[in-house]
């Protein structure tokens, strides 16, 4: 699956927050980081909303 998973998105999002919190980004970098964070937020929200436990039963022997 090439689609970003929830956990990847969440971890990426939290690292964006960390980068912004460190506070040594240029204005352009800070804005770009923020925009990327917002995009990741959207991914996280979508993943949470669409989440439904998938159950696959393997055949026994």
């Amino acid at each position: 699956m090439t689609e970003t998973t929830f956990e990847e998105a969440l971890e990426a999002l939290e690292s964006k927050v960390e980068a912004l919190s460190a506070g040594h980004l240029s204005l352009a970098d800070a804005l770009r980081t923020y925009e990327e964070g917002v995009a990741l937020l959207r991914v996280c929200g979508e993943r949470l909303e669409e989440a439904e436990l998938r159950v696959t039963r393997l055949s026994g022997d």
Partner: protein
Amino acid sequence: METLEPLGVAQDALTVSELVGILRSAVTRHPALADVLVRGEVGNVSRPPSGVAYFTLKDAAAQVPCILFRTAAAAVRFELRDGVEVVARGDVDVFPARGLVQLVVRELSPIGHGAFWLSFEQVRDRLAAEGLFDAGRKRPLPRFPRRIGLVTSEAGAAMHDVLAVLGRRYPLAEVLVSPCLVQGDDAPASIAAAFGRIAGRVDVAILARGGGSLEDLWAFNDERVARAVVAFPAPVICAVGHETDVTIADFAADVRAPTPSAAAGIVAPDIGELRDRVANARAALDLRIHESMESWREAIASLAGRLRPEVLAERIEAARGRLDAAGASLEREGRRRVADARTRLAATTARLEAVSPLATIARGFAVVTREDGALVASVSAAGPGDEITVHVSDGALDAVVEERRRKEA
């Protein structure tokens, strides 16, 4: 009527204590009565608050009173109740106060489990010696398992419990159910095969079985199950039976859960926690960008402050002040110089006046000039008939020379 003859002399008789003492001595010294294994049915269970347990062991024709002292009673791993078939290990003793022969029980197992426990301990000790249960082998659980393996019986409540909890707590996952037998002689091989089917396909696996009797759970004490758990490439959570049931699979697993539902709670975070984390990240992101913008804004404001027109105006004003001062001083200097010049002019004029012929004239002298304006300072300058002008203080007299008289030397 005959009186009863004494059986012997009174002093030959044993006291009760002596008799019981002999009995006790005979019982405790008898090799067959020490560390004895007895099987039978439990009856007359009595558990006073002291923690000691009393019961009888009986079969169809006989019974023997038994006592479990407190520590031994606490170690009993099943419910001691009337009707249970058990094997007891202990020592026979006589309690003098009641003249009672009792089995002092040290270990008690439900029937048939004596062999089980022996096997349990042997397998456990052997695998422990191999290092299979070492703390260093325990693998950490993934934070966000994407695929969760579930090794259990498709017919059992355990599967339903695990899926229900996961569906509620962490619906982000995919569960691969790998069915197996969970009791009986074929169960260990079936469990190992079920692990084999999901090896490499999941981030974590749960080995689950609902509660049951010790015999029901026995497959989970099989060495093959323990080895399958240890060899599995991803961490394994073992959740077999109830909280009090401990199997060898529990020792082998990376994490032991008290029940299958608990395993489902351990294997994944709660989606609510994840929602909170997303919300926190959202708030932090907004706060940080706001702070960042604010700090840039402050930096700009600080720069703008240093570019204020007032500052420029102040400097212009200062320059103007200096200019004004210079102008004023220039003017003062100019005035002073003009005044000086006037003073000098007046003095010069006075000196000039002092030497001016006009001043002499004013004293009654006259100045004589010819027609051509030349001064007549000598009798040679004019002759008779020449017109001359005599200048006096308030005007002039035109005259004609009548005669020249030269002063005799």
